[in-house]
Structures are given as structure tokens and as C-alpha cells.
């Protein structure tokens, strides 16, 4: 038996908090890679692209260097095409000419099952042979289905499986914000 409760949203991060996280992750990326010389950023469509742009700007502020920046659509590499009649709309991929030999930081907004990251790594390797692939995410909400872990985490957020994490970006939604949404049905 389950009790229905009305769906509700809980605010997790506000715009200034997200801005502080971007500053910290940018510094962590520079620290781990000993500067901005051998790194590149690749955002995973769509939310990861916005976060990658923010980190790119911040690294430019800190180090006065514009590191290579790319966007990756992972649809080609998904493992659920045709399952549940799913055919997601594909968007553009653009990867800077050659990332071979660089440490590529994949950037995504939410790390959940890890399947997106697996697909992104496969996609990236079809373009080039990076020296290393690292992972930066705004939210790590747990529930991994693959042996994947992030190198840079904005916020660890324990969630229930039936909850949704919604990340809004000012490019599309007025303001940077993160919410957790309960889908209305309480865990049994």
C-alpha cells in the first residue's frame, strides 16, 4: 500500500552557491593537473555544456588561458536505443580538432547511474585518444549502476530513486538553481 502525497520541489542550491562551486571546481581542476597547460573541457549535452562554459570562463579568469572547449551529444552511444521505443532527439557534437595527449575533463550536471558517462567516454574515444579522462559534476546523487566515480564533485546529494534532480541554468531558465522533486508517491 502506498500513500499519495502531492509532488513538491525542494531547493538544494541557489545561484550564488553554484557560482562558488564553479570557482572551487575550477581551482581543483587546475590543482590536480598542475595548471591549465594540458587540459581540455568537454560538456555533455545539455546541462553539462552550461557548466563547462562556466568552468571555462573561470579558468580563463584565474590563469588567463582559454583551454579547448567542446560539446558532446551522447545519444549515438546510449545503450537503450529502441528499448521502451526510445529514440531521443539528437543534438550537435563539436569537439576541438585534436585532444590527443590532453587530460580531458568531462563535465555533466548530474551524476546518477553512470551510464551517460560511460556513453560519453565511448564517444570521446571515437574522436581522439586523450592522455586521461577526468569527470566533473555539479551534483552526485548516487545510485551508480557502473563502476564510475567523479574526480570533482560540486555537491554530494543522497536521494531516493524515485526522486528527480532538476538543474536549471540561466541560459534556458532565468536563473541557476538546483531542486529535488518528489514524484508524489512515497517510498514503500
Amino acid at each position: 500500500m502506498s500513500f499519495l502525497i502531492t509532488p513538491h520541489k525542494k531547493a538544494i542550491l541557489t545561484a550564488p552557491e553554484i557560482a562558488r562551486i564553479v570557482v572551487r571546481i575550477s581551482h581543483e581542476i587546475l590543482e590536480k593537473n598542475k595548471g591549465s597547460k594540458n587540459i581540455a573541457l568537454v560538456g555533455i549535452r545539455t546541462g553539462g555544456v552550461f557548466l563547462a562554459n562556466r568552468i571555462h570562463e573561470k579558468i580563463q579568469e584565474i590563469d588567463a588561458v582559454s583551454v579547448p572547449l567542446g560539446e558532446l551529444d551522447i545519444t549515438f552511444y546510449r545503450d537503450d536505443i529502441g528499448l521502451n521505443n526510445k529514440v531521443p532527439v539528437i543534438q550537435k557534437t563539436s569537439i576541438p580538432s585534436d585532444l590527443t595527449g590532453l587530460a580531458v575533463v568531462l563535465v555533466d550536471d548530474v551524476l546518477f547511474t553512470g551510464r551517460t558517462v560511460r556513453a560519453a567516454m565511448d564517444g570521446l574515444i571515437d574522436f581522439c585518444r586523450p592522455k586521461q579522462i577526468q569527470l566533473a559534476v555539479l551534483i552526485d546523487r548516487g545510485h551508480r549502476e557502473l563502476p564510475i566515480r567523479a574526480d570533482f564533485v560540486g555537491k554530494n546529494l543522497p536521494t531516493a530513486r524515485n526522486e528527480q534532480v532538476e538543474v536549471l541554468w540561466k541560459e534556458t531558465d532565468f536563473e541557476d538553481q538546483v531542486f529535488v522533486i518528489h514524484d508524489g508517491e512515497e517510498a514503500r
Partner: protein
Amino acid sequence: MRLSQKDLLALSDLQKEEIALILSTAATFKEVLDRDIKKVPTLRGKTIVNLFFEPSTRTRTSFELAAKRLSADCINITAATSSTTKGESLLDTARNIEAMQADIIILRHPSSGTPALLARSLKSAIINAGDGTHEHPSQGLLDLFTIQEKKGTLAGLKVVIVGDILHSRVARSDIYGLKKMGAEVTIVGPPTMIPPYTDQWKVATSYNLDQAVVGADVIILLRLQRERQGKGFFPTLREYARLYGLNASRLKKANNDALIMHPGPINRGVEISSDVADGLSSVILDQVKNGVAVRMAILYLLSGHANE
């Protein structure tokens, strides 16, 4: 957004939004074709069968390449090597192919309507790769894609389609697609090769190519399909070439940036002169390159229906 039907039989069946979805999906697949590794794992494990009862190089190779670029398994069956030569019916052949768990069957057949027959009878997705004188939707879509890529839009363009409209399935797909996307279409040809039922298409008709090309943005030439024609449609090939062949002096009357298109194979010196076919306005080989991307998009979008 997804396609509403499990099959792709005709552009006359598609909504404008569905055509736009196929074209935008094709643009993303075109990027894959420019990579060093021109292959993605999207359709791995899917089986695609090319079932061709008429000769073809471009369409069959293009579908096969599209399937392979998406990592699907692709098998080719042609009429000469199939058991239809032993008297098996088309439907029985197709049912056997389906029993081998083909997800998508691509059919070319000399009789109009055969893909629709298979689509009704089978669960596999059916793609019409040209049926008789009915439609050739993947060619129509790649023509739309090429025009949109070069011109930025389809709406408001003046498109002239020249030649054997009566027998051309490419012309029918082009007309339905172009009209749905808002282009203006004029069909030109000898009166014997303009079908009597053009009213429903809402296109302009002309028997004079010199007048029709004035101000054209796109000129689509059709192959004279001598295998489908009886005798008596026009007196001689020479006369046809003189009246309805596109040459450099006629091309000058069109807009400066007009595109010249042809579904291939071209008859040089008949519907198109060699200097025009190989000239700067010609996008005939771009059509072939885009064909692979458009067919990848079709296979991808239909694969979502494969398990229903």
C-alpha cells in the same frame, strides 16, 4: 518527438514536423560522416535487410553504408539471387526474412504499393526504396536536405522539376515534400509526360523549359526512364534533349545561385549537358553524400518502433 508510423512508405503520409525532424536528425549524422572514425554504435544488434527487385547502385549502397555506419548488421537480397526466381511470392519471401528477426526491411519493387502491402502484413519496419511509379521517399528527403543545407530554408523557394513526371517516383516524393515545406513547385516536360491528375499537387505546369527556368532557385532534372516507357512519348532523343535538356545557355536564365540537382544515374547529353552536370551549380554529388546521412536518420528514427 518521434515518427508516428512504424514504416516510411511515402512523403505524402508524413506531417511537416516529421519531415523537419528527419532533416534535423540527418544534420547531426552528417557530422559523423566527417569524422575520422565514421561509425557510431547506435544500432548495434539490429538487423536490416535490403530487398531489391530492381537494379540500383546509389540507393542500395547508400542504405547499406548508412546501416553499417550505425553498426547494424545489413544483408542484401536482390531479385536474381532470391527464391522468387523459384516462384516464391513476395509476401512469403518477406515473412521468411522477418522470421530471421529483421528489424527493418528496405524494399525496392517495380510495382507501386508493394511496400504498403508488406507494412500491413509484417511487424518489421518497412522502408520504401522506390516502388514502381509511386514514391521514393528517401530520395525526396535527401533532396529536401540538400536544398535546405545550401539555401538555408525551403519555404518560398522556386523549384522547377523537369522531365518524365509521369513515370518518376522521385518527382512525386519531391513534390509532396517540397509543398509541405512551403516551396513553390513548377513541373516541366513534354505534354505526354505530364500526368493528367496534377491538380491535387497544387503545382504550376509548363511545357516550355526556357520560360519555366526564369528566376528558379532550384532545378531538379529527372532521368528519362526508358525501361518504364512504352514508345511514342516523344519523337526522338535528340528532340527531347533540344527542348527539355538543361544546358549552359538555359541555366543563365535561372537565378545566379540556382542549384542543379539530379537523382542519378544521369544521361549526359539527354536531360543534362556535361558542362552543367560537372559545373559549379551542380550539387549532384552533394546529394549522394547527404543521402547516407539522411538514411542514417531514417534508420535511427524508425528503430524506436522496431520492438512494438
